[in-house]
């Protein structure tokens, strides 16, 4: 007998009318045989398929399939029954409900947080009109074989593009202008100065406001920026500069830039009510900074000179780009030929890419698209893990509901109703986990807000958020609820009610799948545990390690730099002396802290017996109290003596070694000459201090020289005495003294040990993230393990009963049940350890001073994982082991 095409049969079965399916299928089979004999196989196949296609009735529903009328499951009684059962179920299995909630809420929180971040980053500049026609002209270079970007363009370009290139509706030049502070005159007093954001304001013309949709509150876009020395402010800035002044009154006021240039406020615009990379707050008229351009400037690319272009509707962007390149090449060719230079070309960067253009290294906040996509993948991954756990736990729970389901089925509940009921319960748990994850993500945003770009948390796009949450709820409910629901609907009520219990799929394949999932989860968990352990160890090492100097009870403060510049050094020295006399201050010194971010170094030469040695020497300007204050141990020679100029050096051991002296004491008396320093002066070394860390532990200890130089001392170091609760009072006294001498400058002090902690900010952030991830990984693994343990304990109920009857002890049974799982965890540990070792080894390599990776770390991490696994299993295994065998063996 021939078989007709399978796909056609499938179509018929799936989409044919259910009422007549049986006879139609039969008839067609018979006819197919007949056609094969009369018309041949191919023709028969065609006819069969054609008939099947014609018989498709996809929307048809069975009219008389049900021998009994189906119960109406949406009656009030049934619904209240569902709710009651759901409530009882969830409450009776509080532990499982809780675990499911926690598990799902981890996944949901991950999704939520990452959604928040991603929607924030993608929400930038979405409300700029004609967004798809707005471009920024940027420059690209080939540099050392690598392509690099620069957000700027040659200064003459905007005018040239406006005059010579078609297809451009609007050219918008933007000049970033260096302005550190803005002085606002105060009625009857000294002007108050306001720092600008990023030390710059932008200079634009009215075109800018035709591109970015600012609302004008005062002034007119056409006239407010067409003269030199005009400035437009945003509302927030105007209110900051002129509090309690009506916005219309602000127009006409004068403020001062660069201490000298008076500019007039000619307009106030509302702050942009949406996320935008156009962050300007003060808009200087372009005419203020504009001048005549030299042709040679075509060869110059400055990131401060930028240009946006709004293309005409329908303009070909490639054509415009080519024209701009041709224009730029024509004008710069001659110059490049004459002077040389790297290859440069221009691109039109779409506005939609502006926020993601990370390779232009701009000051503003930019996001990396690949990171965002990676995070989205991560969210999906965590969610899937959580859902798999839910499925595991839920299907492990089903046996306990066997009777309920059996009775429901007997009383006429149908598959679909049962599945819907189960989905409903899943939806309830999912909903609860949403509530929980609201709290969790709230907590996350509180704890980790410094890792996220500012404003992330407050950005809400309501329609999108509602859509996202509803979609997530539905997806999770379906993913998590369908399989257990299907399991429920599948089994035979007869076997259940006859008391044969309920064996959910004993198929070994499925168990293997679950086991490999456990191994995988613990593999990840182990990686994180080892990582967290080593990173935390390294961090503790950083923070607690002896850096070679004292750092407790020391506060530091920067002397206002203008004082140094104006060489009003007496004031500074007066401050030092006064602070020194304050009770509670044990010592004061001026000089760069031993470990600091900034440094200065130069090549120095020394004449030794072996000849002239030249090496790079780091220089620190200090005073004579510095070495005692920081308790730097002198290993040879003596401390510096007071001097206004560089008269002698105290070097560290590394410098002595670098100079070629085996013993530090030999270096004392040697003369060092600074390259290019003043007039071949030889400066004697008078002392050697023990090596100390002058930079973070990323760096090796370098040769250092301490020297006096009155002019260059700008950092005040104060050693406090007494107990720490007396310090605030001492600091108050210091502040008063400070203000007596520097009434304008705030006394901004820092505890030095905190400053050193800040060196490792990045590492501390990594550590926090790793700790969090470790917690999540462990939790997820435990939930998975718990589900599997529950399932096995249930499946082996009878076995345990028989063992106990035959004399097995509780401990023996617990051990029996735990053994298999410990094996899984061991496999995971063995797999994860080499990878963890490699990853941590690579990470530690970035530090010049680091802890060693030792075997006990892996052992500890492994033991931790096993202990956690054992505790997790014990809930179920002990429960199973103490059950009276009569109970487990009675039901047969």
């Amino acid at each position, binding site marked *: *007998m021939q078989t007709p095409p399978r796909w056609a049969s499938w179509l018929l079965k799936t989409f044919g009318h259910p009422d*007549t399916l*049986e006879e*139609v*299928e*039969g*008839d067609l089979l*018979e*006819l197919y045989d007949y056609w094969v004999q009369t018309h041949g196989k191919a023709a028969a196949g065609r006819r069969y398929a054609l008939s099947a296609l014609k*018989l498709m009735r996809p929307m048809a529903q069975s009219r008389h399939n049900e021998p009994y009328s189906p119960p109406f499951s949406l009656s009030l009684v049934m619904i209240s029954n569902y709710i009651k059962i759901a409530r009882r179920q969830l409450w009776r299995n509080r532990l499982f409900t809780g675990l499911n909630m926690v598990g799902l809420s981890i996944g949901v929180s991950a999704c939520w947080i990452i959604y928040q971040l991603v929607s924030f980053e993608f929400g930038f500049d979405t409300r700029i009109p004609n967004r798809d026609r707005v471009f920024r002209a940027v420059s690209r270079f080939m540099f050392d074989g690598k392509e690099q970007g620069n957000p700027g363009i040659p200064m003459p370009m905007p005018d040239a593009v406006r005059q010579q290139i078609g297809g451009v509706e609007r050219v918008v030049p933007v000049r970033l202008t260096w302005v550190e502070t803005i002085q606002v005159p105060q009625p009857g007093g000294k002007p108050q100065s306001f720092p600008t954001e990023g030390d710059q304001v932008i200079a634009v013309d009215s075109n800018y406001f035709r591109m970015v949709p600012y609302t004008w509150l005062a002034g007119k876009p056409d006239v407010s920026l067409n003269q030199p020395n005009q400035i437009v402010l945003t509302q927030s800035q105007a209110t900051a500069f002129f509090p309690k002044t009506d916005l219309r009154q602000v127009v006409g006021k004068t403020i001062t830039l660069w201490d000298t240039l008076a500019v007039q406020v000619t307009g106030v615009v509302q702050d942009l009510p949406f996320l935008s990379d156009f962050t300007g707050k003060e808009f200087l008229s372009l005419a203020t900074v504009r001048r005549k351009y030299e042709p040679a400037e075509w060869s110059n690319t400055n990131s401060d000179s930028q240009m946006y272009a709004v293309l005409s509707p329908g303009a070909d962007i490639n054509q415009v780009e080519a024209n701009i390149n041709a224009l730029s090449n024509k004008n710069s060719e001659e110059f490049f030929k004459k002077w040389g230079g790297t290859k440069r070309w221009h691109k039109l960067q779409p506005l939609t890419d502006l926020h993601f253009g990370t390779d232009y290294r701009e000051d503003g906040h930019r996001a990396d698209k690949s990171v965002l996509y990676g995070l989205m993948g991560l969210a999906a991954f965590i969610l899937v893990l959580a859902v798999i756990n839910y499925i595991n736990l839920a299907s492990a729970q089903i046996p306990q509901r066997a009777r309920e389901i059996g009775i429901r089925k007997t009383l006429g509940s149908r598959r679909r109703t049962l599945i819907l009921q189960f989905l409903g319960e899943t939806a309830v748990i999912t909903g609860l986990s949403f509530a929980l994850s609201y709290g969790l993500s709230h907590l996350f945003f509180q704890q980790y807000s410094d890792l996220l770009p500012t404003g992330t948390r407050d950005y809400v796009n309501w329609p999108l958020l509602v859509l996202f949450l509803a979609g997530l709820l539905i997806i999770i409910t379906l993913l998590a609820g369908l399989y257990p629901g299907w399991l429920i609907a599948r089994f035979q009520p007869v076997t259940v009610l006859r008391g044969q219990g309920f064996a959910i799929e004993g198929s070994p394949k499925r168990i293997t799948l679950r086991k490999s999932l456990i191994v995988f989860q613990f593999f990840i968990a182990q990686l994180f545990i080892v990582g967290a352990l080593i990173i935390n160890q390294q961090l503790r090492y950083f923070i607690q390690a002896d850096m070679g100097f004292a750092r407790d009870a020391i506060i530091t403060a920067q002397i206002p730099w203008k004082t140094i510049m104006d060489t009003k050094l007496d004031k500074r020295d007066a401050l030092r002396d006064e602070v020194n006399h304050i009770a509670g201050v044990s010592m004061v010194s001026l000089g760069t802290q031993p470990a600091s971010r900034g440094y200065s170094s130069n090549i120095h030469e020394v004449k030794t017996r072996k000849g002239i040695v030249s090496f790079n020497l780091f220089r620190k300007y200090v005073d004579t109290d510095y070495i005692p204050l920081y308790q730097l141990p002198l290993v040879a020679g003596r401390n510096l003596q007071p001097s206004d100029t560089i008269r002698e050096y105290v070097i560290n051991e590394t410098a002595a070694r670098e100079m070629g002296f085996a013993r530090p004491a030999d270096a004392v008396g040697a003369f060092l000459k600074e390259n290019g320093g003043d007039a071949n002066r030889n400066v004697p070394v008078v002392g050697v201090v023990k090596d100390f860390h002058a930079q973070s532990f990323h760096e090796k200890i370098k040769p250092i020289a301490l020297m006096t130089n009155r002019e260059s001392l700008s950092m005040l170091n104060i050693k406090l005495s007494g107990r720490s609760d007396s310090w605030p009072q001492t600091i108050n006294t210091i502040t008063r003294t400070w203000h007596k001498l520097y009434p304008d400058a705030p006394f901004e002090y820092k505890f030095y040990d905190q400053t050193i902690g800040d060196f490792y900010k990045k590492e501390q952030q990594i550590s926090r993230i790793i700790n969090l991830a470790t917690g999540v990984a462990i939790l997820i693994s435990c939930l998975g393990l718990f589900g599997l343990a529950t399932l096995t304990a249930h499946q082996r109920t009878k076995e345990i009963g028989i063992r106990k009857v035959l004399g097995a002890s509780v401990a023996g049974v617990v051990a029996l049940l735990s053994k298999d799982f410990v094996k899984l965890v061991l496999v995971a540990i063995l797999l994860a350890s080499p990878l963890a070792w490699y990853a941590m080894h690579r990470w530690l390599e970035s530090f010049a001073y680091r802890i060693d990776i030792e075997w006990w770390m892996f052992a500890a991490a492994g033991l931790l994982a096993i202990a956690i696994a054992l505790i997790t299993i014990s809930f179920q295994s002990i429960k199973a082991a103490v059950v009276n065998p009569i109970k487990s063996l009675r039901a047969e």
Partner: protein
Amino acid sequence: MKRAFLGEFEEVVLLTVAILGESAYGVTITQEIEQKTGRSVGFSTVHTTLQRLEEKGYLSSAMGGATAERGGRRKRYFTITTAGTKALAEVKHTRDQLWNALPPQTLHLLGA
């Protein structure tokens, strides 16, 4: 009396069911029509026509007679109802009246 309405193909199917008697089901009906009329008919057409005739009350059906060659599926046997017979008779009566009204010379020209 309500006038019976039968389409041409419906009439053919109904007649075929009547001819086949007790052995009328999808396959035999399709084959019979093919053989008797010489025209190739699709099974789906026959099937839908049968359904429609049953809905109109001219046919009744019953399941039975599973065989191995149809994969153990039962057949749906059709029998003509009284209403069906009446409808057929009425159609024939109308036709005969029309034929009888034909002038003899025209009848001659048609070659009958």
